């Protein structure tokens, strides 16, 4: 195996596009190194993208926020502006692993690892995040939910890699939140996770909403019926019950060592109700 640490995006593309090299992108490495150790990945080369300066930056743009693909979760948590605008996304990223893992793990890595249980993905999907992808054919931008196509599989083409996560500007009277359920208080993979972003009108009625569900299907689920349950309401009990029911209905989980399908279907609704209340309160705060 070879180790490469290019300093430009173009060099990285060239290394990744070399089919013979069978290269993997190394960002935080908190998934890749574990998979290599377990013989579940055996790349011919590793392309460490942390030496590309632009990939280490969080920048506020005209359209919102650009988070470089090599920015670790801990740096996001320390960024006051980002945490103010997208607290749900930042909190979701801050739930990935331990403090130690936070020092390395990235949104881009969490997304491209394509685990159905990735914590940051439902939060990003709810937040309408996009990913910026560089590749031999140039740069393209796609919604986050188009990246994972199944457990461990992504839509990235050969030679492509994610260079940044793009979050929109936070609108007035909007807020987001992410909650997950794990058996312990820390260190577990999500049994179920729910990201919600919503916006209100000035009467406090929900105008728009996105509800994304994690760990209850092979990929993240954008639950349109769940969002509809919130729109036009002030998140009264009936709306929250409808939200929970819609989430449970949209979920297609499996039984595994982390929980049963029945449990996941129930808990996803519980999490959705709780996350919606947080997002709603946050939306109100921006008034």
């Amino acid at each position: 195996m070879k180790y490469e640490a290019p300093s430009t995006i173009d060099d990285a593309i060239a290394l990744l596009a070399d089919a013979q090299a069978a290269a993997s992108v190394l960002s935080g490495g908190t998934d890749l190194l574990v998979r290599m150790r377990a013989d579940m990945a055996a790349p011919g080369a590793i392309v460490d993208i942390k030496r590309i300066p632009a990939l280490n930056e969080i920048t506020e743009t005209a359209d919102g926020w650009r988070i470089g693909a090599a920015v670790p979760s801990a740096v996001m948590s320390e960024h006051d502006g980002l945490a103010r605008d997208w607290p749900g996304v930042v909190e979701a990223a801050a739930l990935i692993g331990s403090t130690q893992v936070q020092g390395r793990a990235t949104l881009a890595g969490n997304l491209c690892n394509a685990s159905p249980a990735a914590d940051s993905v439902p939060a990003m999907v709810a937040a309408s995040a996009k990913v910026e992808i560089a590749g031999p054919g140039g740069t393209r931008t796609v919604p986050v939910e188009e990246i994972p196509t199944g457990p461990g599989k992504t839509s990235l083409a050969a030679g492509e890699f994610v260079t940044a996560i793009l979050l929109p500007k936070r609108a007035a009277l909007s807020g987001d939140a992410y909650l997950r359920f794990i058996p312990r208080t820390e260190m577990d993979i999500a049994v179920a996770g729910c990201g919600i972003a919503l916006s209100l009108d000035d009467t406090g009625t929900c105008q728009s909403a996105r509800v994304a569900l994690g760990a209850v299907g092979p990929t993240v689920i954008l639950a349109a019926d769940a969002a509809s349950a919130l729109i036009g309401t002030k998140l009264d009990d009936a709306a929250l019950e409808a939200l929970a029911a819609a989430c449970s209905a949209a979920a297609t989980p499996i039984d595994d060592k982390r929980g049963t399908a029945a449990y996941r279907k129930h808990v996803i609704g519980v999490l959705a109700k709780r996350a919606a209340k947080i997002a709603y309160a946050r939306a109100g705060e921006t008034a």
Partner: protein
Amino acid sequence: MALDKNAPETRSFKVVGSRPLRPDGIDKVTGRARFGADMSAPGMLIGHILRSPHAHARIRAIDTSKAEALAGVKAVVTRADFAAAPEGMEDVLDNCMAGEKALYDGHAVAAIAATSAAIARQAAKLIEVDYEVLPHVTDVDAAMAPGAPALHDGRSDETVPDGYSANVMSRVEYGHGDIEAGLAKADRVLERSYKTAATHQGYIEPHACLATMGPDGQADLWCCTQGHYMVRNTCAALLGMDQGQLRVTASEIGGGFGGKTTVFIEPVALALARKAGRPVKIVMDRTEVLRATGPTASSSIDVRIGMTKDGRITAADAELRYQGGAYPGSPVGMGSMSAFAPYDLENVRTIGYDVVTNRPKQAAYRAPGAPMAAFAVESAIDELAKGFGLDPLDVRLKNAAREGTRSSYGPTFPAIGLEATLRAAKDHPHWSAPLGPNQGRGVACGFWFNFGGDTCVTLNVTPDGTVTVTEGNPDIGGSRASMSMMAAEELGIPYEKVRTVIADTGALGQNEVTDGSRVTFAVGLATIEAARAAKREMCARVAKIWGIDEEAVIWEDGAAKPAGPNAGDYPPMTLAEIAAIASNTGGPIAGHHEVNAEGAGVSFATHIADTEVDPDTGATRIVRYTVIQDAGKAVHPAYVEGQFQGGAVQGIGWALNEEYIYGADGILQNPGFLDYRIPVASDLPMIDTVILEIPNPGHPYGVRGVGETSIVPPLAAVANSVSAATGVRMTDLPMSPPKVLAAVQGQQEG
């Protein structure tokens, strides 16, 4: 040995009972301490073990030729490289390296030594094993049923009645009285079944060793173990060596809890070193630790208890079924003996079945066999007490075993501390503190035997009057400090003047492993006796100097003094003064003591747990926890508290989240700390402790073992607390969120 009956409770102590810094502390906070994997040797090879991917398979053939041909591979061994095991050690050998069959997922089938870990791992992939996959069974009740896939044929012993599968290895029965007559007197008879999952000791340090063997057959082994004398004896037997030719040095040990009381990789490393002619180091990874070392048994237990409406137990009956993995030896005997030990019962019976399954061979885990039994019994008693509207502590006090009680397992108890722990629990502010919404409080008792065993201590006095204590039990939690304290106490010198070292197997005679909460008791006893021998020698030397009878010299406050008719005739001679002229008075001064220490005292505990259960998710949080336990005499109270807290938290993990999860294919689903979920810091509150001291008459200072009892009550204390919080009785451990939620929902529907 004769018991020291010198009324320990009346003694006042100067050093014992204080909290000095541990002598190995600096090394352990600076990273200098050398644990199992921290040793290297010139020319060292790295060993790697190939493991079965099948739960049960006949090994038709193993072809190692391609692996042997790989550049950098220096030796490959299989079972053929080991001699036939001596009688009684066949299972240990077969567990270290499979013979005819692989009996569980992870069972070792071959091993490689190579110049690097990467080459060794690559070589493992080149070994071709021809497996005939066989039907498997991992559940204890399924394994007992007639027609279950049999691991071994014809190994059931004479105690097993007809009608069971060949997987039932033995049956035990304890008790006295007449169960049915007793039950007839009860106002209510509760019958319940309980299950507990297999859990792992979860020590953070994986097994590691470094072996060297020369062509002359002399060998050295460095390893992390709870007993390097056991390692020596076992490895020598499995490799056909003389015990004296194998010197074993115990590294610092990164946790054991019983899991390092046997061998796994050590004989393999020696076999590789013998074949390669070079040092070989083997370090397990976490996956190997979970797949192929010794978790504890899983259990299935039926309990029948009769109680009068005023809380008196009229009869208690239990059947315990423990699977201990692929070989006989589950701790069901100790589970059966301990199940009802806290109670004074006229009619009591326990029946235990030892069952084999396609899982790794169980190893001891802190009070082996007792926590599961206590979970069942303490849950049933709690349910009965609640049903009658009685205070669960009052019910336990009403039935508590005390001095003179004929125990459920036979012997009559001497002075014991159960009642004291129950009264202390009642008086503790925790017991009467208010609870919040969705919170509940549970209480449970626990019992453990504690042991002694073979022990050697040598105590040397240096020329400048400092003292070295040499002992043979790895220091797993601060025992060097305790030994230094007891030597200092006995000699009347400051703690700082004593240093305790753990010797290799060449330096002392046989020492039993660090287990059964025996070290502070047994090694402490031998340390005290070694110090007394040294004092006698020093008094004899001084008697010669003064020209008086030996009997006329006594030892007091670290000095020899004239006594009796000679009192005051000579100024006292301190230990340092005597040591300085030792060469002139007969040579170096030492004391030693070798003993099979008997007379360990049993220990009881009562735990109080508060939990809060999220009714929507079934998640359980420990809100408050208090441990009350009899320590006999707490030599170093800070480390006694640490044992109480650590055992309680392991029990909390067992109660809530820890479990071996097997798939239908018999493969372990969660061989890592990600999904084998031991408690993390944020899961827990502070763990309050109350140390009671009811002296053990079998020890000069009254010491009882403290390490194991603390894991016995938590399973039931937490379960009783969850039941109080939710109104549903939890009978299946772990009480993971899906199970708790299902129970709560079932109750709402029901």
